[in-house]
């Protein structure tokens, strides 16, 4: 086990010194991403805006939307992410076992090829939060998937044949893969999941042609591991200094420090920077790991070619609530306080909506995007530190004490489900949680591959409310909610904004909803076969605009079993009944595709 890890480290060190080749794969991909008929990367484009210029479906006719076709994945469990549309082919992924289907859009969605990796089933128990996978990426004629067991595979897009594969982590240490890989220039970038197992988080870049490791930047550890320049890498304009990934940790706790990486990565081609956030420090018991625990809970801006960090910003120093900072960074050029800025907008689990200058890392706005947020009064704009309220501080209240009424809950005011931005309205559309918690930390000891959590939680809807979620429109200049829709359940589906002046999102009840981008007025809803935690996607084929979304959570609710399975069923007895029921309920996740 240990030798594998040090071999990888050694390799990382060797390869970072090599220079990377010219980026031709990326030019093709950048060109493709500007064509709104296709959807060639997880968020549609590098800026993570989830915005489409298509407007055949618009605020006037969206109420006429109908199901065009649907596709059953045959896999139960939570379906996150969404399909890719490359030319006339759609690529669909599933949760564990991580199947991939290539469908021919010219031929009634005939399956051109499908792929199912062989994975060790012992991967499943080390996945903290359902066996999800957030999707595929495309580049250089290949489809990339980051499997649950941390294998990154490259398949030829035409045939589904494997080009190369590489193991990024080790499930025996609790390291898993859930996020989509991202193709940037001549590299494929993958993070790592396993914050609840004491994994040390990292972002790793592999060569798109060969799968060779190009660089790996850890979230904590020595400067050479975290790829910072003590003099030139800045935190709110100041150099981070030597050993910034070590000196806010007790002893060698950084080795099991968490800070995992499992969100959506964005990229600015002009600045050559990739942006992403890191997760919670391990364990969830803050008393056990004194210090700021840098660089967990941090926004990273790294040079794509070398991995070197240009700037960092730690949002929640010394986390006491599991407020992972992994949510997507949306790049948008907007006016902030009267000045046009190359902005980065981020809705953190901790309940603050941040606007930064993505070139310099300067903090411009930090305001609550859910009025229920109470763990901090505000963010000090000079130090960037949230001003924590003692009553809701699980460190202040101490181990084995339940801190009650903390808002938001551990799953945050918003989780990974990505928000959208419309350049037409200048607004951000954010799916949120409106949930609070009681949190009781306790002492734990670390064993490799075993859960390393150290807190018990109870979660419930925010006080006074009968709803667990909101869908909001956010003004990132003023740091204010423009409008807000009460949702009975948390919104765990990624949004889509379009030039048709509409915004789409899905709900846990299974509704695909379309609302007016300016007012939030509901214009359309359709109930898909299961709850939606996937992201809404749009594309155009043969002159027609389509909206696609994956539904699928947990399985079948079981309503309708009525008197149970005791009675004779068609003379087959209970066994026959179960078989029928299985046929009925094993449809698994479904991709539903709509058109006018």
């Amino acid at each position, binding site marked *: 086990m240990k030798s594998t890890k040090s071999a990888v480290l050694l390799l990382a060190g060797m390869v970072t010194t090599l220079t990377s080749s010219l980026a031709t794969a990326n030019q093709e991909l950048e060109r493709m991403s500007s064509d709104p008929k296709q959807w060639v990367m997880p968020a549609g484009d590098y800026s993570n805006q989830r915005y489409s210029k298509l407007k055949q479906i618009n605020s006037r006719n969206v109420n006429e939307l109908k199901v065009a076709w649907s596709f059953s994945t045959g896999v139960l*469990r*939570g379906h996150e992410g969404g399909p890719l549309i490359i030319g006339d082919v759609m690529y669909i992924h599933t949760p564990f076992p991580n199947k991939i289907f290539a469908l021919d859009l010219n031929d009634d969605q005939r399956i051109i090829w499908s792929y199912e990796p062989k994975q060790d089933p012992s991967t499943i128990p080390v*996945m*903290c*939060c*359902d*066996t999800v996978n957030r999707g595929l990426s495309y580049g250089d004629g290949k489809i990339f998937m980051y499997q649950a067991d941390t294998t990154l595979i490259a398949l030829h897009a035409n045939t589904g044949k494997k080009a190369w594969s590489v193991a990024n982590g080790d499930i025996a240490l609790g390291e898993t893969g859930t996020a989509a890989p991202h193709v940037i220039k001549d590299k494929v970038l993958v993070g790592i999941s396993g914050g609840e197992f004491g994994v040390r988080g990292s972002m790793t870049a592999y060569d798109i042609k060969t799968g060779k490791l190009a660089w790996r930047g850890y979230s904590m550890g020595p400067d050479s591991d975290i790829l910072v320049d003590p003099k030139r890498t800045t935190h709110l304009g100041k150099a981070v200094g030597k050993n910034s990934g070590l000196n806010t940790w007790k002893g060698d706790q950084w080795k099991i420090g968490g800070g995992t990486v499992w969100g959506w990565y964005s990229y600015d081609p002009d600045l050559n920077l990739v942006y992403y956030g890191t997760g919670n420090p391990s364990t969830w018991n803050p008393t056990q790991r004194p210090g700021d625990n840098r660089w967990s809970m941090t926004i990273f801006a790294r040079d794509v070619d070398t991995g070197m960090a240009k700037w960092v910003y730690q949002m929640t120093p010394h986390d006491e609530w599991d407020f992972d900072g992994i949510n997507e960074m949306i790049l948008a050029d907007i006016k902030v306080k009267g000045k046009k800025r190359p902005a980065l907008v981020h809705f953190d689990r901790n309940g603050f909506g941040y606007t930064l200058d993505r070139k310099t890392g300067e903090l411009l706005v930090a305001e609550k995007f859910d009025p229920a947020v109470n763990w901090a009064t505000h963010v000090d704009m000079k130090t960037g530190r949230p001003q924590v309220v003692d009553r809701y501080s699980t460190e202040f209240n101490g181990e084995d004490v339940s801190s009650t009424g903390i808002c938001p*809950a*551990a*799953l945050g005011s918003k989780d990974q489900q990505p928000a959208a931005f419309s350049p037409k309205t200048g607004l951000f559309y954010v799916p949120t949680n409106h*949930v609070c918690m009681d949190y009781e930390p306790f002492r734990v000891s670390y064993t490799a591959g075993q859960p390393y959590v150290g807190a018990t*939680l*109870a*979660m*419930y*809807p925010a006080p006074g409310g*009968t709803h*667990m979620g909101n869908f909001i429109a956010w003004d990132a200049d003023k740091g204010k909610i423009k409008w807000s829709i009460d949702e*009975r*359940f948390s919104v*765990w589906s990624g949004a889509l904004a379009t030039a048709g002046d509409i915004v789409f999102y899905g709900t*846990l*009840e*299974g509704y695909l909803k379309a609302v007016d981008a300016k007012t939030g007025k509901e214009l359309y809803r359709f*109930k898909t076969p*299961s*709850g939606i935690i996937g992201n809404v996607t749009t594309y155009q084929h043969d002159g027609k605009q389509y909206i696609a979304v994956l539904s699928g*959570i*947990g*399985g*079948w*609710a*079981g*309503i*309708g*079993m*009525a*008197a*149970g*399975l005791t*009675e*004779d*069923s*068609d003379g087959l007895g209970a066994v026959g*009944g179960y078989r*029928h*029921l299985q*046929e*009925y*309920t094993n449809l698994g996740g479904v991709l539903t595709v709509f058109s006018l």
Partner: protein
Amino acid sequence: MRKKIRNNIITFTLLHLLLVSAYANDFPTQSRAEFVFACMAANGQSQAYLAKCSCTIDEIAEQISYAEYVDAETVLRMRLMRGERAAIFTESAWSNEIISNFNSITSDAELECF
């Protein structure tokens, strides 16, 4: 005087309509059909179960609104999810109340129909 009575009657009728429409017959056919399909798959693919299962969903639809039905369906489905995110649906008083209300209504409906 006469006007007042008429107003009262109108108010009463409106209220009555509101109360009734909130609870009866707002289930889409698709959702009733889905229930019947699943119920027959579980119990038997026969005319007898078609009648029993249809009766059950009609009884449920008379007792609760479709929105309440969807709430219960959602909580039950979320309870099958793995990991920390399922916790709020398995442990919170809020979701337990949704399910216990729903269970008492469905068991009444089953008693009525089976």
